[in-house]
């Protein structure tokens, strides 16, 4: 549920997480650094098409991604059109969108587990400068476990309000939701302590 991963057999799916991240990050940053010129927009479009079609991720997925970015797209394009005019607007919007689309290939083709492992390896050297990487990994894992629990608590609060005949609202819902979350945290803290976390 909590994942952007789309199962598949493309080259990118088979590449190990670390190198893949590196390559796509470099590509995305290179796109982001292109100059504001009409030609750059063409380069962006070509690069994105290449990045989705050649490894075998496909145009359908590209379409879904573009649709998912429509708001970001609007935020960028409208300001640009108003203040800078059509040509820079096209170039800059294409540049930003292309960088984001290429970078989006990482979570699309990599399982969350593999990404977390890659992260842990990446954080390894920080241990030497005194970072408690084990505790950091624990925090990430506990957060992932807790998200569906809190989502259920939010649903419970919504339901309780409707049951009391009032329309659920953010303002009225947030107080009970926060209290429930804090109580959950108390119990979770106890359970962690009882299982050896100090």
């Amino acid at each position: 549920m909590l994942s952007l991963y789309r199962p598949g057999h493309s080259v990118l799916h088979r590449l190990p997480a670390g190198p893949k991240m590196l390559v796509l990050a470099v590509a995305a940053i290179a796109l982001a650094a292109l100059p504001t010129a009409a030609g750059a927009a063409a380069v962006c479009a070509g690069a994105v098409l290449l990045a989705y079609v050649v490894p075998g991720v496909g145009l359908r997925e590209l379409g879904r991604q573009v649709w998912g970015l429509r708001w970001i797209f609007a935020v960028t394009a409208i300001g640009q059109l108003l203040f800078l005019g059509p040509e820079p607007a096209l170039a800059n919007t294409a540049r930003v969108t292309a960088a984001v689309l290429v970078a989006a290939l990482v979570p699309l083709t990599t399982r969350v587990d593999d990404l977390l492992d890659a992260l842990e390896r990446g954080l390894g050297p920080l241990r030497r400068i005194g970072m408690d990487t084990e505790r950091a990994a624990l925090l990430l894992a506990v957060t992932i476990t807790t998200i569906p629990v809190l989502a259920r608590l939010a649903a419970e609060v919504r339901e309780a309000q409707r049951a009391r005949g009032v329309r659920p609202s953010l303002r009225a819902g947030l107080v009970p939701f926060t209290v429930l979350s804090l109580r959950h945290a108390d119990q979770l803290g106890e359970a962690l302590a009882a299982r050896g976390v100090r």
Partner: protein
Amino acid sequence: MDATDLARVAVFAALIAVLGLPGSFPVFGGVPITAQTLGVMLAGAILGPWLGALSVTIVLVLVAVGLPLLAGGRGGFAVFLGPTAGYALGWILGAIVVGLIVHAGNRRPVWWRTAFAMVAGGVVAIYALGVPVQSLVTRLPLGDTAIASLVFLPGDLLKAAIATIVVTLLVRAYPRGFRRQWRAAPVEERVAA
């Protein structure tokens, strides 16, 4: 940081994530105007500056790793190449500022101090990082970007108001949640209450 702090940090990170889920709470929750900044403000106000900032950081790390925890189900380090990257990083600073102001001194916060914290941390601090980065990414001059970012302002002020109400109610309804002792309210406040 004991086990309870660890749990509270994780739970608030999860709370920020849940505020970005569609349908978790009505009214807000779209892109790019998101209820998640409310979670950021609450994290700072309730957990305090440092644990609050840590829980925001956890959310951003999970996002960077590829979990779709931002409003609209967005995730991956792509987010940090987009125009809203600076705002997202600004959440960390925002939680710190909110926490510092709400937890300043050893008196329980009155509503106007909380309101000030929410505007200074939950709005100004976030924009202070968000606008320049947006300008950098989109290559729109800083002044123009600042004007464009005004579309967020009504929503953000409303969220600051909601966060103020929620924190003020929580101070009354569940003081234990702040996990600290406050000195009794000064005399004039008690008379007013």
